[in-house]
């Protein structure tokens, strides 16, 4: 028996294989259904599949874009899994991304930021974004610990609030809106200066993987290790499984919850900062692009496993690229891509049953 299986008891080996097989089968089944609809819609199947393939894996750019998207989703997903270990369901990814983006933009545009040496110009805004997201998450944690407010609800509400704060902050010149040279200036922030942009790994626009990828790798390894082997991970599990007993055992339940949601929020905020500093470069209402909700789905589908989060994020990241390409090159309606994604989510969620049943 592995040491790792000490903490919350895990199903035996066959289940871990099932855990892989069922979601895989579910994805394939959803694809099959999707392709059937494609055919019914009158699009040649080979053309659609080819376009999907080209869009997802066709060239270095496509792969890089998919990876960047996957990084954002995975960060939100890892955060979700960590908070979930403490029994908390963070559905506020969208708002945490928004808040992270606002803070990161504000810092990027702070006079003097761009001239900081040693990469601090992009590191500080990233950290700022993470802290802001973390604060937004911790707020829900605080309410949970202090007032017993259900975090599913508070994080969701905080998301809506953050989305409208973002809207407001790019509408209002006293906040982040770019100076209005004329009244038609778009409601966006200024472009952030070059030094504050997240560096590209290859340095080339042909494969624009940002520094987000290695950051995610580090975050994921630390998270996996922490959840399985650390004292903190143990405390999260105890709080998640029985808060009263955890309190009796001397674990500070309230602070653990706050910290857990802080981490989840911080990873969301970091995702927001990366989306902004790595790709979009200027803040706009709606810049979070629904990645918070997609990341939530990734986190939920991963069922507590960091590896699952990575797998899910890659799936969603590449699927979106393939979908864009299918729509463009094979005229598959965008709505159909949505249908496909919905089906995949439902099928993976449903397939979990067969894993659970074995584990029981």
């Amino acid at each position: 028996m592995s040491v790792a299986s000490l903490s919350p008891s895990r199903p035996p080996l066959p289940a871990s294989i099932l855990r892989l097989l069922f979601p895989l089968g579910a994805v394939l089944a959803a694809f099959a259904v999707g392709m059937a609809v494609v055919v019914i819609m009158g699009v040649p199947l080979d053309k659609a599949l080819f376009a999907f393939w080209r869009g997802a894996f066709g060239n270095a750019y496509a792969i890089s874009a998919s990876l960047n998207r996957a990084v954002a989703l995975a960060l939100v997903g890892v955060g979700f899994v960590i908070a979930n270990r403490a029994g908390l369901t963070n559905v506020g990814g969208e708002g945490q991304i928004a808040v992270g983006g606002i803070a990161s933009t504000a810092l990027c545009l702070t006079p003097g930021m761009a001239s900081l040496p040693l990469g601090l110009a992009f590191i500080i805004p990233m950290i700022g974004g993470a802290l802001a997201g973390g604060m937004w998450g911790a707020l829900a944690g605080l309410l949970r610990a202090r007032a017993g407010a259900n975090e599913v609800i508070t994080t969701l509400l905080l998301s809506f609030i953050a989305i409208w704060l973002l809207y407001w902050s790019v509408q209002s010149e006293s906040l982040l809106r770019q100076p209005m040279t004329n009244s038609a200036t778009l409601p966006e922030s200024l472009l952030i200066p070059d030094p504050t942009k997240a560096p590209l790994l290859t340095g080339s626009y042909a494969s624009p993987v940002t520094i987000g990828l290695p950051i995610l790798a580090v975050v994921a390894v630390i998270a996996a290790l922490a959840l399985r082997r650390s004292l903190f991970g143990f405390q999260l599990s105890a709080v998640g499984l029985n808060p009263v007993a955890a309190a009796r055992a001397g674990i500070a339940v309230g602070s653990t919850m706050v910290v857990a949601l802080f981490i989840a929020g911080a990873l969301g905020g970091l995702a927001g900062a990366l989306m902004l500093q790595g790709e979009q470069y200027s803040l706009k209402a709606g810049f979070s692009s629904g990645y918070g909700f997609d990341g939530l789905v990734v986190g939920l589908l991963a069922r507590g496993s960091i590896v699952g989060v990575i797998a899910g994020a890659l799936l969603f990241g590449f699927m979106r690229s393939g979908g864009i390409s299918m729509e463009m090159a094979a005229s598959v309606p965008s709505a159909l891509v949505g249908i496909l994604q919905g089906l995949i989510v439902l099928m993976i969620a449903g397939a979990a049953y067969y894993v659970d049943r074995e584990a029981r």
Partner: protein
Amino acid sequence: MIAEAGMLASDAAPGKGRGVTPLLAMTGVGKRFGAFEALADVDIAFLPGEVHCLLGENGAGKSTLCNLIFGIHAPSAGEMTLAGAPYRPAGPRDALSRGVAMVHQHFSLINELPVIDNLLLGGRLGRLDRKGEGRRLESLAQEFGLTLDPAALVGDLSVGQRQRVEIVKCLMKRPRVLILDEPTAVLLPDEIQSLLAVCRQVAGAGCAVVLVTHKLAEIERVADRVTVLHRGRIAARSDHPADEIDALVQAMIQRPVARDGEAASGVLALPKRQRPTPLVEAEEAMQLDGVSFLDRLGVRRLDDITLSVDRGEIVGVAGVEGNGQSELGAILAGLMRASAGRWFAGGRELTEASPRAITAAGVGIVPEDRHAVAVVSGLSLADNLFLNRMRQFARLGLIDRPRQRALAAEYIRRFDVRAEGPLIRFGSLSGGNQQKAVLARELTTPDLRFLLAAQPTRGLDIGAVEAVYRLIRDAADGGVGVLLVSSELDELIAVADRIVVFYRGRIVGERRADPANRRTIGALMSGQAA
């Protein structure tokens, strides 16, 4: 040995003994949970008019057997018949409709609903006649001598009252087979008496009553027949249980046990404890100084409790449940603050202390509700053994798992916790072993000076009860002061040195733990001034 034979002297093939057709019969029944065989080869018959007791260690499979009858689980092997017809209930609903009702080991009541709604749950879907049902309830209550307030919220009831609701809920269905899974574990002596009377009355009306219990006195009083389970198999049967108690006990725990025939509730009597001479003269382990507690509604749950426990002393707290014991436990555990007064342990004031500080002061707590407060069932046994002390294995924030496992294995040996290994999910341990594991943890608290043990033997089989009390006594002999809260007066008399009685949040009397004081203590418990 008798257990080998699998039958006691008077035993015969099921049902034959009296030449009656069994109401419910199981043949060759088995139940597996995954790879684990919880029941195997069970042949058993329940006759109309009998009270049939099931005995067995914790984890022997008693509840599993009841659950099969009630349709919660489906057997993986074997057949069941009900009044001669094949019986394979698809679920509780099915079982109820065929006249099988069950009182569960863990309550199946909805705390948020009033009594009357709980009673009507699962009945007709349409408009409710709460008034009419209330009257029906009243007549039923009179018939069985059980009284209930239909409008009270279940969540506000005492454990004993809830148990009564459970029973009335079953009786309202007029069952042919009534299963009671450890209904008396949480009841007071007179409540037990009236429950047993109800059992007799129901059986008298031609029903089969299946009663699971760990209390031998109840078997002596009420059982017509007894079946003993051991590790999922039938280990013994008896048609004259009152005469064969010792043999039954032996079949159950597979070793001889000394018993004190005098103790009315039939707990095994440990030899009366001789308190060792204190190591240090009259050193206090714990002291309560005028502690009071008012709940959220302003009701005074604890009223000016002043009490001290010396090192090496075992002080028993007797009292009907709900007279402040739980509140005292929660305060000592650091989960609630006293509204007034102060308390000390190990020479430190702990009135405002956090749970961690309390543990650090050398205070061990075995709480009354172990599932809610003491353990995290979803974690492993090893994790639970060190729940409040994981820090000791941490290096750079990471837990040294091999070291933890090794120490866990040692505790498991030392405290005789029966488990497949330290990595097993805590929740899958039997009740007795769970309790031993909690004791193992609390008794190994560094610098332990004071131990609160609240209802430490509730629901445990006699073997486990003995083991738990031996552990507590050993601790006291080693100089730990123990406050032992129990609703089993006989146990207190056997184990404690002196007994204080709680009534309505106050200490209403103190007596030496002597069988001679049984009566007076009983009177104090029921609020009669001594």
